[in-house]
């Protein structure tokens, strides 16, 4: 049987592949509210111990989900400071905990609005934009541009069947003109592409974005051709932990058979790519539009601040 960490990792990985990191975080927090409501624990200290277990598991998943780690760890500290120290009944501390989580949900939604506000600095009018992963932040940004009356077209570099179809569905619903091209054929459309948009799961302290599989190749190709590449990224996805291993890449091995011959072979699939941030021209965040060097500074500043809080706890 799977361990709780493996189970959580698999569940979050599948959800992330399906709905993207931001919506995943939203879903996890809504689920957390429902779980707290059903939790049969009367004592706030026991609740804190239960929450600690949850944080321990979520912060050790593979890959790590920066946004979840950040908010859940913060929540844990808040609970320890503000809930467990007070002598209140379970209804009251449950309500307090749920209010805190609702505040996080609100703040996450605010971040999204701020990111779109900064996205306006990127001129997309009349441009052809290539997308590859199925980042919901990128999808939302494209919808936002369309809502602002901008005219542009999108080329989807094909990848996993379901992710490609998710992009198709989104663009079709937003009435954004699009074409689809296999990712291994993008060299043929290179000249017609004006800019490339990507989303990311997290940013590691090694200054690598953790992104959808296949993105590294696509980004490298466009970087070599000097086509501007933009990442749309919420700063609360910063992974504020020291990277110890390449554990965030999940490797899935399975045996496949040749379609016509009696040949069996091992097929390896990777869950994510690690992409150095210096391959990007700009990174659009909720705190502004940054160059890779500026983002690195912002990351270090945030990391140091967080480290201080961590030591305090």
């Amino acid at each position, binding site marked *: 049987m799977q361990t709780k960490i493996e189970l959580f990792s698999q569940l979050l990985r599948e959800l992330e592949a399906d709905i993207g990191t931001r919506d995943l975080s939203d879903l996890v927090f*809504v*689920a957390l509210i429902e779980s707290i409501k059903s939790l049969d624990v009367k004592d706030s200290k026991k609740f804190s111990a*239960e929450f600690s277990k949850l944080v321990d*598991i979520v912060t050790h998943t593979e890959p790590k989900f920066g946004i979840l780690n950040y908010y859940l760890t913060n929540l844990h500290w808040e609970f320890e400071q503000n809930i467990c120290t007070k002598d209140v009944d379970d209804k009251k501390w449950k309500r307090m905990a749920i209010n805190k989580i609702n505040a996080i949900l609100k703040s996450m939604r605010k971040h999204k609005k701020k990111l779109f506000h900064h996205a306006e600095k990127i001129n997309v009018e009349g441009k052809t934009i290539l997308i590859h992963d199925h980042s919901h932040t990128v999808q939302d940004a494209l919808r936002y541009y369309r809502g602002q009356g901008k005219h542009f077209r999108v080329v989807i570099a094909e990848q996993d069947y379901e992710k490609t179809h998710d992009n198709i569905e989104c663009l079709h619903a937003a009435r954004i003109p699009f074409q689809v091209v296999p990712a291994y054929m993008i060299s043929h459309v290179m000249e017609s592409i004006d800019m490339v948009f990507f989303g990311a799961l997290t940013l590691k302290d090694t200054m690598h974005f953790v992104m959808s599989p296949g993105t590294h190749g696509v980004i490298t190709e466009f970087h070599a051709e000097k086509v501007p590449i933009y990442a749309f990224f919420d700063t609360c996805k910063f992974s504020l932990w020291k990277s110890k291993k390449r554990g965030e890449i999940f490797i899935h091995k399975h045996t496949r058979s040749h379609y016509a011959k009696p040949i069996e072979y091992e097929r390896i699939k990777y869950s994510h790519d690690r992409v150095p941030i210096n391959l990007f021209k700009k990174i659009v965040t909720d705190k502004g539009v940054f160059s890779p060097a500026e983002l690195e500074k912002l990351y270090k500043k945030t990391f140091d601040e967080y480290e201080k809080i961590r030591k305090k706890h």
Partner: protein
Amino acid sequence: MLTYITIGIFLLAFSLLVFELFDKSLIALFGALLMIIVGILSPEEAIEAIDFDTILLLLAMMILVNIAAKSGIFAWLNIKIAALTKGNPLALFFFFSLITAIFSAFLDNVTTIILVVPLTIELLRGMGRDPKPYIFAEILFSNIGGALTLIGDPPNIIIGGATGFSFLDFVSNLWIPISMVAVFTMFVFVLLNWKKLKPISASLVDLCIANILIKKIRHKFLKKTMHRDFILKVIAVLFLTIMGFFLQQQIGLPTYIIAFTAAIVLALLTAKRVNIHEAFQSVEWTTLFFFAGLFIMVGGVEKTGMLEQLSHWVANSTNNIFYLSLIVLWVSGFVSMVLDNIPFVTIMIPVIIGIQAQFPGYDTTILWWALSLGACLGGNGTLIGASANVVAADMAKKEGVHISFLSYMKFSFPLTIGMLLLCSAYLFIRVG
């Protein structure tokens, strides 16, 4: 000599089934072919031995359920169950066990299993839990629920046909032992699987996993477009099918005709949305071939006269009605564990009528209830004891959950013995 050869072939096939050296359909077909090749059965007798009613019912239900599943109605039901139980393993266990028992009391056991098992596997697997204990429980409760009513299990249909007992006669005479057996099974099950079933309401991690999973399933489901007309057609046809099974005696048509009518009508009504080639391909042909082979082998055993000898031994063993009812119960229970209970019950009917004739003026109806309880509940003992068991194991295998003969038996056999002991106590109280 032929008797020994027949027993030899049957024991060989049974051993191969127990140790799962080959796919069970191959073993059953090979055993059946051996019976014909060595001359125990002629090809014509072999064909006659196949219970086409059961095979055609299975075939029709597989097609019907496959078409119905394409409407998304079962996925919808899955979400509702998950939301209702909030992913609580114990609540899920009770819910699935009870729903299986209730469904199989009014529906064919196999149909119930075809409806319930895929839902269980999808839900439990998604929660990172082992679906096996739940499937075991569903197998047991399909047979327990089926034993309650006249239409729940084929032995009861045969007994009802021979005696003229009504639907209410079955329920009023069997509800006490069936309730006792159901409570006992639930209790033992929960006790043995407490680690896997204990409530998760005190664990935030488990609650969180369950809630995330429920949301994941809901999202996955809502992404697919559901067609109202398709769902309405499925609900209407399923409802009419259940009503058809319920009123089968009044309609006067065999169950497989009702199921086939439903499958074909639904296929016609949903022809634009369902590829009938795919629906036919989804039929579990290995299960059907296994049954065909098994029926032929049982036909061979029947031809040797062994079952008749057994029934005579039962009739001549004692003059005490209580002891007789115990013998009927336990013999039919053990026979049902390894052989199809339909031919055994068929053979036992004239025997019990004969015994009744020996006791004029005495209430000997208890023998019929002993036969019904033994034949229906005995089927729980092994994985090949009842059609529902085989179908459940095959469906689980298709979904990647392997249920071996021995892993099921080491759990089900002692439980079945417990069930038969409870029924013995009931018979003692009734006769006493």
